[in-house]
């Protein structure tokens, strides 16, 4: 652990210096896409990115009306989907974020809220 802190302090990564100079709220998203951080230190998804991608997946589901999708929507109650459709959406989310969700957990994901929370807190969400 000490060695890791030692190494991180003494290696200049382009990502570290750029985010240190001035606050760039939105273009940070675009910078992220073009700038590859070579360390896995700060490499977690931001909440807006997670929300955007989850909503994209839900909107592109054929049985869903895209205008009704918000980050709070419940799949079965608000969007009128089936439990099997729920399973399909969870599979779509697994494919989007390259996750492997255990069966019991996947059964419990019922709404966009839960999905966003789960993915945001998952350490390996890609």
């Amino acid at each position: 652990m000490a060695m890791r802190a030692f190494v991180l302090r003494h290696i200049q990564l382009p990502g570290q210096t750029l985010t240190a100079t001035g606050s760039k709220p939105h273009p940070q998203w675009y910078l992220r896409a073009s700038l590859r951080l070579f360390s896995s230190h700060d490499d977690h998804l931001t909440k807006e990115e997670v929300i955007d991608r989850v909503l994209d997946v839900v909107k592109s589901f054929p049985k869903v009306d895209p205008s009704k999708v918000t980050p709070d929507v419940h799949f079965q109650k608000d969007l009128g989907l089936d439990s099997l459709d729920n399973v399909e959406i969870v599979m779509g989310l697994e494919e989007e974020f390259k996750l492997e969700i255990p069966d019991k957990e996947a059964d419990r994901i019922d709404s966009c809220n839960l999905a966003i929370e789960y993915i945001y807190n998952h350490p390996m969400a890609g």
Partner: protein
Amino acid sequence: MSGASTAAYLARRAAQKERVRILYRRALKDTLNWAVHRHLFYQDASDLREKFEAHKHVEDLDTIDKMIAEGEATYNKWRHPDPYIVPWAPGGSKFTRNPVPPSGIEIVYDYGRENND
């Protein structure tokens, strides 16, 4: 069991629904393993969905149990021998590849200095 909404009946139906959902999820993943190309997968996935939808309205608990058992047997028969598992998940290729070193271990940089220097 009179078929009325007693607690035991509802509990059993809920357990069955969960089994069906988990079975559908595994069958769908298995279909993706077998049919790698997307257009084939979409075709097979809709066939699978049709099979599940055809028995959607069965009400009798024992028939449902039997159908779930048959479905699970079919799933076991058709399981892919080499499924795609995400690399860092158990069974994947990167699982426990770089385990976290035990805590409290440090490298001491003394460069060969001895105690009487």
